[in-house]
C-alpha cells in the first residue's frame, strides 16, 4: 500500500513537471565531446572554437554535448534533426556497425552526416566505404612529432650557443649521455603514432649531427593525473634526460611543471600550451580540431558536403597539425645565439618540405604501421 501511494505521488509529480517541458527544435550542428570535456584547453575546445568561428561568420548555431553515453547522444541528436554531428570520442561501434542486432546509427539516419576523428572505422574489409554519411578525420601527427624530435636534438646539441648558461641546467650531454624521453597515456596506436614519429625525428637529427641518443618511453601514465606526470618525468630527468615529450592529456601539465622546476625542457601536445610554463616548453605538437570542424561545416553550409571524401587526412600543410611558432622558446635565445637559432628553424623547414614531397616517410602507427627499429641508426630505444 505504502509503495503504491508512493508511486502514484511520484508519477503525478513527474507528469506535472513533464507537461511544462518543451524540446528545443533549432536545427544546427552538434559536437559530441570526448571524455575530457569541452573545456579541456585542447582537443575538444579547439573543435568548439571552430564552431564558434562558423557562428560568427555564417550565423549557424552549434550545440556542444558533454556525455558519457556517446551512441545515445548521437542517436538523440540525429533523431531531433541535427544534420551535421561531430563526434570527438573514440567510440564507433554503434555508429558504423550497429550492435546487438540493431541497425547502425549511420544507416538509421541517412540525412545526418557524422564526422569521427583519429581513425577510419568506416571501411569494409575490401576497402570500400561503409556509409556515405560518415566522414573520418585523421591528423598526420606522426609528421609533426618527427619535426619535434629533430628540433629537440638540434636545440640540445646547440644549447650552449643558443642559451645563456644560467637559463637551463641540462644534464651534460657528454657525461650523462644524450637522452630524450616520451610519456604516453596508454599503449595504443593512437599514442605510439606520436612516439614513432618523434623517435624517427630524433634519429634523423642525430644522424645529421653524427651523435647517438637514448630514447626512454613510458606508455602507462594515463590521462588524468598531473602528479603522475611529475613523478615519471622526474625519474627521467634525474637519469639525464633533457627533453620529455608527453602525449597524455593533463599528465603533460605535471611534466611541464617538473621541467620548469628542474630547468629542463618539455614538449606538450594538442593545443598551443607553450605559454603555460614559458621557456620550459620547447614546443607543442598541435592537433587542431578547429580546422576540420570549420572546413567541414563550411562545406555543409555551402551544401557541398557530399563532395568531401569520406576519409580526410590533415597533414602539415593544412595547418591542422604541426608545431607551434616557437615564439616562447625563442624569447630564451640570446642575441648571440640568434644565428644558430635561425639555422635550426631553416633545418626544420627543410625537413617539413622533405616530408611534404615524399623524400622522408614517417612511420604512421595510426594506419597500422609498426616501427622498424633497425632504421634507428643513431638512437637506442631503452
Amino acid at each position, binding site marked *: *500500500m*505504502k*509503495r503504491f*501511494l*508512493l508511486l502514484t*505521488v511520484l508519477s503525478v*509529480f*513527474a*507528469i506535472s*513537471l*513533464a*507537461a*511544462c*517541458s*518543451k*524540446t*528545443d527544435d533549432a536545427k544546427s550542428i552538434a559536437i559530441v565531446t570526448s*571524455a575530457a*570535456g569541452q573545456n579541456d584547453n585542447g582537443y575538444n575546445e579547439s573543435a568548439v572554437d571552430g564552431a564558434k568561428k562558423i557562428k560568427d561568420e555564417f550565423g549557424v548555431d552549434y*550545440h*556542444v*554535448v*558533454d*556525455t*558519457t*553515453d556517446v551512441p*545515445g*547522444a548521437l542517436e*538523440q*541528436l540525429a533523431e*531531433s534533426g541535427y544534420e551535421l554531428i561531430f563526434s570527438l570520442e*573514440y567510440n564507433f*561501434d554503434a555508429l558504423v*556497425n550497429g*550492435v*546487438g*542486432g*540493431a541497425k547502425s546509427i549511420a544507416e538509421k539516419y541517412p540525412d545526418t552526416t557524422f564526422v569521427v576523428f*583519429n*581513425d577510419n572505422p568506416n571501411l569494409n574489409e575490401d576497402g570500400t566505404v561503409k556509409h556515405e554519411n560518415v566522414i573520418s578525420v585523421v591528423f598526420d601527427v606522426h609528421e609533426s612529432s618527427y619535426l619535434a624530435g629533430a628540433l629537440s636534438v638540434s636545440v640540445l646539441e646547440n644549447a650552449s650557443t643558443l642559451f645563456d648558461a644560467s637559463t637551463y641546467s641540462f644534464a651534460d650531454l657528454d657525461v650523462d649521455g644524450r637522452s630524450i624521453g616520451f610519456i604516453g597515456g*596508454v*599503449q*595504443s*596506436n*593512437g599514442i605510439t*603514432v606520436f612516439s614513432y614519429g618523434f623517435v624517427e625525428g630524433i634519429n634523423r637529427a642525430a644522424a645529421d649531427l653524427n651523435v647517438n641518443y637514448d630514447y626512454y618511453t613510458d*606508455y*602507462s601514465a594515463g590521462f588524468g593525473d598531473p602528479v603522475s606526470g611529475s613523478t615519471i618525468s622526474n625519474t627521467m630527468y634525474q637519469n639525464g634526460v633533457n627533453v620529455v615529450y608527453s602525449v597524455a592529456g593533463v599528465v603533460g601539465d605535471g611534466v611541464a611543471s617538473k621541467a620548469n622546476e628542474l630547468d629542463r625542457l618539455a614538449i606538450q601536445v594538442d593545443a598551443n600550451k607553450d605559454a603555460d610554463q614559458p621557456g620550459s616548453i620547447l614546443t607543442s605538437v598541435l592537433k587542431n580540431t578547429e580546422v576540420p570542424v570549420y572546413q567541414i561545416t563550411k562545406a555543409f553550409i555551402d551544401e557541398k558536403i557530399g563532395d568531401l571524401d569520406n576519409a580526410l587526412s590533415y597533414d602539415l600543410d593544412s595547418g591542422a597539425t604541426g608545431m607551434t611558432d616557437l615564439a616562447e622558446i625563442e624569447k630564451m635565445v640570446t642575441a648571440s645565439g640568434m644565428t644558430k637559432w635561425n639555422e635550426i628553424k631553416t633545418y626544420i623547414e627543410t625537413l617539413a618540405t622533405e616530408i611534404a614531397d615524399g623524400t622522408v616517410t614517417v612511420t604512421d602507427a*595510426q594506419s*597500422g604501421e609498426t616501427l622498424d627499429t633497425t632504421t634507428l641508426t643513431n638512437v637506442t630505444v631503452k
Partner: protein
Amino acid sequence: MKKTISNILNVFMPILLAFLIGAIIMIAIGENPIEVYGILIEKSLLDQKGLLKTIHTASPLILTALAIAISFKANIFNMGVEGQMLLGGFFAGVIGFTFEGLNPVIHITLSIIVGVTVGILFALIPAILKAKFKVNELVVTLMLNYAALEFVRFLAEGPFRDHSSGYVSTPMISESSMFKRLFESEITLFTIIVLIVFVIMYFVFKKTKLGYEIEAIGKNRDFSEATGMNVGKKIIIIFIISGALSGLAGAGHMMSDQMRFTMSFSGNPGLGWDGMLISLLGMHSPLGIIVAAVFYSALITGSESIAVFTSVPREIILIIQSLIILFLSIKMISKNAKAVAILEKITNKILRKDNKGVKK
C-alpha cells in the same frame, strides 16, 4: 498512516530539496529549471524508449547492488564488487570475441558461465582469507580492486589488444555472443535474466535458512557461532554468491551494452560503486534496491538527455545528482539509531577536544 506519511516525506523531501537547490543554481546561470527537469523526467521515465533505456541501465546495477547487500547484511564488507565485476566482464568478453559462429544460446551461456566463475574465483581470495585466517576482508577486497583493474589493463594493452584500434580496447565480441536488442530500444534479454536472478535473491533473502543465517551473522557473529552455526563456511558462501552476482553483472554489461572492453568499461565511478550506493539507498532490501536502481538509472539517462537537449553544463547536472544522493543518505542515517549514536560520539569528541584546546 502516520508512518506512511513520514515515509513519503522521507523519500520526497530530499529529492525536492535537491531539485530546489539545483533550480536556484540553474536560475543563477540563466537556465529554465522547469524545462530542464521536464527533460530529465520525460526522457528517462515517461518516454517509452527512454524508460526501457533506464531499465537497461539499471540491470547490471541491480546485480551489483544485490552483491553488496548480501554481504553487508551479514556485516561482511565485500568492497571488491567492482573488481569482481570487471574481471567477470573482461573474461566474458574474451569468450565473446574468441569464438565465432557458435550457436548464440551456447555462446551466450558459455560467456556468462565464464564471467560468473571468474567473479566467484576472485571473490574466493578474500573469502578464504577471512574465513580461515580472520584477515580483514574490507582491506583485502578494497585493495584487490586496484589489482583487478591493473590486471585487465595489462591484458587489454597486451595479449588481448585489438590491433586495429587506436585506443586501448579488446576486439568487439562476435555477433553470436551479443544479447539482441528488443522493441527497437536498448533493452535486451539480459534484463529478463536480471529479473529472474532478482526473484531468486528475494526468495533467498526472505524465505530461506541462508537468508536467516545471513541476518543472524549480521546481528551478532559470536552468538551465531555459539548457537552452532559454521560461520566460516557461511562467509565463504556469502562471498561466492556476491562474486557470482558481480561476475554476472560484468558479463551482462559486456554483452548487452559495451560489446568490447575499454578502460571506460565500468564508467565513472563504476558499476560496483554505484551498486554500493544503490544498496545503501535501498537499505539492503531487495525491493528497496530495485526502486533505488531504477531511480538512479533514471538520473543517469535523464541527465544524458539534458546534455543533448539543453545547454546546461554537465557539471550542474552532476551537482544535482549528488545532492539528491546526499540528501537521501542523510535520511538513511537519521533512521539508523546506531549511526546517529556514532555521529554523536564523534561530534562530542571533537567538541571536547576543542574545549581542551581552549583551556590550554
